[in-house]
Structures are given as C-alpha cells and as structure tokens.
C-alpha cells in the first residue's frame, strides 16, 4: 500500500528531464504487471502512449507488452494489438462459453456490408469511388449507419477537383473484427496484386469525379500511409 503512494509521488515529477531521471524505472517484471493491470481494467484498447502516461517515469510499456503477450499465449484470454493500441480479449475458440451480446443491434444490410468492405480495402475512398465500384448510388443512411457504429470515419479530403471527403475505417472496426491493422484484412495482398484495388477510369471517358492520374497517386500515397507500420 505504501509502495503505491511512493510511486504516485514519482509520477508527479513531471518536469524532470526525460529518461535519466532521479527515479529509476521499476523493474521490467513490475512494468509487465502494470501493463497487465491496465489492460485488464479497460474495455477499450489502450495505446502505448497512454500506458506510458500512466506508468511511472521511464517505463517502457512497449517492451513490457512483448513479454505480456508471450505470457498469455495459448491462455483463455489474449493480449491483442488493435491499430496502435492494445487490449485483452478472450480466445476466439472459447466463444461458445459466453453469453452473446447482441452486437448487431441493427442488422447490417447487404449494401452496408459491401460499402464497409469497400471502405476498408480501398481507404481512403470517396463516395463517388464507392458508387463506381458498386455500380449503384450509396443509399441514404448506409454511410450514416456505419458512422454511427463508429466503424468508419471521415479521412482527409482528396486533392482532386472538388476536394471530396474520404472515408476510412476506425480502431473500433479493427477491434470488432480482431484485426491488428488494416493491412491484415483478409486477402488484401492478393487483391492488390491482382490490381483489383485500383481505381481505373473507364477508357476514353472523363475520369470519375476528376479522378485522374493525380488522384490515383494521391490515393496510393494516402493508402501506403494508412497501411504503414
């Protein structure tokens, strides 16, 4: 009990210079316990930065996470990565033991599912591009529903004429589908290799929504950024 109080004092020394401080960081085993406690306590994924802010000065939560993750391998709960955050989730093979929540309060329509997939695989993607791929206009409420579920959000505007808004998927999306990263989407590599994630204008036609070479360049740039690390 006293121990925790001393630690708290440590943390107050916010304006001490970084790393080499008067106070030594706790041993790695102790840091691992801390990360364990914080991840267990939270329903939402916790970022490394957040862990750093909460742990004593000089701690290295990233390293502690490596150890912790290994420790939980094969156990009933697992340490999983969600974008740039971490969470503890039950092992998927034990799902049968749980009382299922009704996750999909509103059942997703086929249009919504396809729109979601297109956003995930093509992000950042504009509404016009989604419509081009589906060959039909995106119905009212589809995007609204996905936004409300917090599975998609607005990305940067495209640097094409009209500067249309784009959509990207969120951390909640990754968490829900158990993805570490948007790069881990099933079949992403194959689809890209097959050229199926390209936005190809109709030959001879004016490029869609001013989507010329410039647009494609921008898009792939944005995408590589998103799929980085």
């Amino acid at each position, binding site marked *: 009990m006293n121990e925790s109080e001393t630690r708290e004092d440590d943390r107050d020394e916010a304006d001490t210079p970084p790393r080499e401080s008067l106070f030594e960081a706790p041993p790695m085993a102790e840091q691992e316990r801390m990360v364990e406690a914080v991840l267990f306590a939270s329903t939402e994924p916790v970022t490394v930065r957040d862990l750093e802010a909460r742990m004593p000065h000089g701690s290295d939560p990233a390293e502690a996470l490596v150890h912790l993750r290994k420790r939980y391998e094969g156990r009933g709960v697992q340490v999983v990565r969600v974008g740039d955050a971490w969470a503890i989730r039950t092992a998927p093979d034990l799902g049968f033991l749980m009382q299922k929540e009704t996750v999909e309060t509103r059942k997703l329509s086929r249009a919504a599912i*396809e729109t979601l997939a297109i956003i995930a695989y093509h992000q950042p993607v504009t509404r016009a591009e989604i419509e081009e791929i589906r*060959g039909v206009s995106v119905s009212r409420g589809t995007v609204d529903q996905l936004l409300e579920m*917090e599975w998609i959000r607005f990305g940067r505007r495209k640097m094409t004429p009209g500067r249309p808004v784009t959509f990207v998927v969120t951390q909640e999306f990754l968490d829900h589908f158990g993805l570490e990263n948007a790069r881990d989407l099933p079949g992403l590599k194959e689809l890209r290799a097959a050229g199926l994630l390209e936005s190809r204008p109709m030959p001879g036609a004016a490029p869609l929504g001013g989507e010329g070479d410039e647009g494609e360049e921008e898009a792939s740039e944005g995408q590589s950024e998103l799929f980085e690390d």
Partner: protein
Amino acid sequence: MADDFDAEPANTDDAPQSVADRVAAEALIVDVDGFEGPLDLLLTLSRTQKVDLRKISVLQLARQYLAFVERAKRLRIELAADYLVMAAWLAFLKSRLLLPPDPEEEGPSGEELAAHLAFQLERLEAMRKAAARLMARDRLGRDFFARGLPEDVERVRKVSYSATLLDLMQAYARIKTKDEFRPYAYDRKNVFTMEQALERMRGLIGFAGTWTDISTYMPDGWGNNRTRLRSATAATFAASLELAKEGHVELRQSETFAPIQLRRRETPHE
C-alpha cells in the same frame, strides 16, 4: 449475400430453353428489385458462363442483359433508369465488338471497353468475397469478448464532456436548416438604442437653454410598457452622458435619486 442468387438465367441465344431455365429467368425478373443496380445484375448473369471472370465473354453477357431488359419490357416491368442507361451502353458496346473497327473513329476500341467492364465485374465480385470473408471473421462480442467488468476505481472523479462527430454535424445541420426555413430576424421592437437616443436629443438640445429634466427627452409612446420604458430610460441617460462628454450639455442632480437635469452648454469645448 450474392451467393443467394442461384437462379441461372436462360441464354436466349440458344434456342430451346428447359423449363427450369425459364423458371429461373422469370425469377430473375420478379427479383429485379433485389438487384443492387445493373452491375449487380450483370454479375449474376455472368455466373451462367461458368468461367473465370477474366475469361468471360462480354459479348455474350451484353446479349443476355439486353434480352433480360427486353423481357422485362414485355412483362411491363418498370426498370429503373440506370438499368436502361446500362442497356444502351451495352448495345453500343455490342455493335463495337461485332463491327470491324473503323480506323476513322476516335475513342477506345470495343475490346478496351469490354475489358473495362470485365474489370468492374471482377472488382465487384472481389469486394463481395472480401466482405463475406470479413463478416465471417471472429468478431468482438460474438466470438471473442472484451472485459465484462471494467474496473471502476473510486479515486479522482473528473467529469469529461463528450460529443461525437455525428452530434456536431447534426447540430450544425439543425442550425443551418432552421435558417433556410425561417430566416432569423432580431426583434428590435422593444429596444431603444443609444444611437437612437443620441439622434433624438441632438435634434432637441438646441432649444434647451434652461435646466430641464432628462425624462422630457424620452421618446413618445415608450412609457406604457415596462420593458420599453427601461430600455428608453437607459438609452436616454447614456446619450446624456455622451453629450456631456462631448461638451454639448451640462448635467446636474441635487441629491441621490433626485431627477437629473440637463441644459445646453453655451460655449462648447473646442
């Protein structure tokens, strides 16, 4: 999902149709609402070719689509405009593919257009499959679970206010649409501004050689309503001070709460 459509539409180019084929074709038409646009319909039709989408015969597909549209017309089924636009485009494509290329003609060749359509179909199909694989993944709250009992520590209770982007946008939309329907006009009926009082008093002050109660400078008809009276009094008083500051008038008051009197200053300050 897409795979629900196991109906195989008949290829009208092959003369005799089996009963099953005809039933399937009817089913397609009855189901036209079930299709998500012409591309979706084309994708379903393309399944009858039972080949890799890369090797699909676009010409055959165009014929099937046009035949479908024809049948729908014969059955007096209203087709949405985009189905007809696609039909027109496919008819054009068909002629391009059948006629020998005209060297004079500008624009992309029939083959190029066909290749693009094949690409679109392949891409849509790929997205469908990707969507299915995505939805089949282990999912939070169904196959794996988050902490059911997040630790609530009763330490520092800090209130944090939250709002979602949706809240923000809807709020803005609400304000803006309100504006569209009922332009906002500020209600000035019961407000007498200092500017108005100043203007009024400047006009009257030339006659005020002797001490007069400032209440006599009050605008007419403002005394019968409390709100208006208060506003007019405040404005008149403020205007008096302003005029005194400018050196046009002198003010006096014999004691606290006594009437305030005003008279023109004979030699205004330079």
